[in-house]
């Protein structure tokens, strides 16, 4: 059974369509890269998958459970969903609100009711994994854009979610930091995590051979291809390089 299943899912903004009749199945352990032009609906889809928005039409099932407005209105159900899905926002500025980086990463595990030793362990591990140990005592508000991205990922990883949703995680990072981030994502994939990532950096993402879900300007899924299938389509590749 697919972990995430979307059936004829649409989303409407006032006077504009955000997503149009999406049908998509994502299995546990998949690494999906959402690609497409600006405004094609990648971020909107991530917000729906994370339960921050409700679809206007169609169905969304997560692990067999229908995610509806009623389901999300119940705080316990919503929290249960958020324990399993972590989202790194495109604008990580909004995601960091604690007084130090260590506090920021510890925030999630503390809510889970873990012991102080476990929380401390998770903080150290996540900061190491994201190469942010040197930022430990810094104030998140004063970090640079790239540093905020790394800390935001660490704070989501600390919750150990089953699914990681990443909205443009490579933006604002140096080439070296992009490589570190992709290496980490590859390790997470090997550990069985499901990763859904929106990105414009086709060249960089290509290296980890994800499944490509490509959106068009009409907010529909234009193609759903494995890395091997995409490799056999040079026109499609050329199109992705121009994004």
């Amino acid at each position: 059974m697919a972990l995430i299943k979307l059936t004829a899912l649409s989303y409407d903004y006032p006077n504009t369509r955000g997503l149009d009749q999406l049908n998509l199945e994502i299995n546990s352990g998949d690494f999906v890269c959402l690609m497409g032009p600006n405004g094609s609906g990648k971020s909107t889809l991530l917000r729906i998958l994370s339960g921050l928005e409700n679809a206007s039409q169609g169905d969304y099932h997560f692990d067999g459970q229908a995610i509806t407005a009623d389901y999300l209105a119940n705080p316990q159900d919503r929290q249960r969903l958020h324990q399993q899905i972590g989202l790194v926002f495109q604008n990580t500025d909004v995601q960091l609100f604690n007084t130090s980086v260590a506090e920021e990463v510890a925030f999630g595990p503390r809510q889970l009711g873990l012991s102080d030793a476990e929380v401390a362990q998770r903080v150290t591990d996540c900061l190491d994994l994201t190469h942010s140990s040197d930022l430990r005592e810094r104030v998140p508000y004063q970090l640079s854009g790239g540093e905020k991205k790394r800390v935001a990922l660490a704070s989501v990883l600390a919750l150990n979610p089953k699914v990681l949703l990443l909205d443009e995680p490579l933006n604002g990072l140096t080439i070296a930091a992009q490589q570190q981030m992709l290496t980490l994502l590859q390790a997470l994939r090997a550990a069985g995590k499901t990763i859904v990532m929106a990105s414009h950096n086709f060249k960089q993402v290509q290296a980890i051979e994800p499944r490509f879900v490509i959106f068009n300007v009409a907010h529909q899924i234009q193609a759903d291809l494995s890395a091997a299938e995409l490799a056999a389509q040079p026109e499609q590749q050329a199109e992705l390089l121009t994004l």
Partner: protein
Amino acid sequence: MTLKQPNKLPDWLEQPNQLSSQRQRHNFLAHNQQHLQQLLARLSQPLPAVQSKKWQLSPAMSLVRLGILVLLIALTNNTGWLWLLGLLIAGHLLLLSPSQFRRFCRSWLMSTVIALLIVLPSYWLVGSATVLLFGFKTGLILASTQYYRLTTTFQALLSGLKALHCPNILIMTLAIAITYLRMLGHYLLQTMQALDMRLVAPAKHPYRLIGTLFGNLFLKSQAYALELYAAMEARGFNGHYVNQPTTTNRWHDVLTLTPYLVLVTLFIFGRYYGIN
């Protein structure tokens, strides 16, 4: 790009989490947070103001029309006049699309009820006739302002103020205040959503969390104010708003305003002839 060998992940990250489900201890906080989030979400996606092209007035004339209507409604106590003005407003409402009309009805009803219950409670002590008269007047004033709000964009409002020779400092203050409030609302909404995503159990220290949230909002607002000022200066803003060229023709404006001018004339001189 070639990637190095994947990092060694800690054991806890390779094992699935035990899902915990704890009862919400601070229900009122969770509910209030949800309500605030819904309100901010609604405000962050306002429906665009639409006006029928055929009856489009220049921004300045729209403001003048609103001013005349509000003044006439506020000044008259004659029920006949109020009916007449009510009919005029109803005529405008007929030009709205069905979806806009529904939005108008919702916001008008809500604002009128709030005004009668909270803003004008003293009228309830005077008597039913006064309540009816002032309730009707309040309803009409709110109807004309809601109609204006539904059919006028923020840029058109600024443009109208400029055309009516409103001081630049006032226009600038208004422009910055609205942009600023919208940005802060959006920031607060996104922060609350991010918090919601990581608040995977009832908050241990909810009040501390609220303090942190608004502390961040304050820091962000300060930083944004400085950035906004620098960006405006960098783009050569000198405190003067350029008047946008109007797309409607003046004769059309004058013709559309004629009924209102007739009403104003009747209102002023009608007293001598016993009309008012």
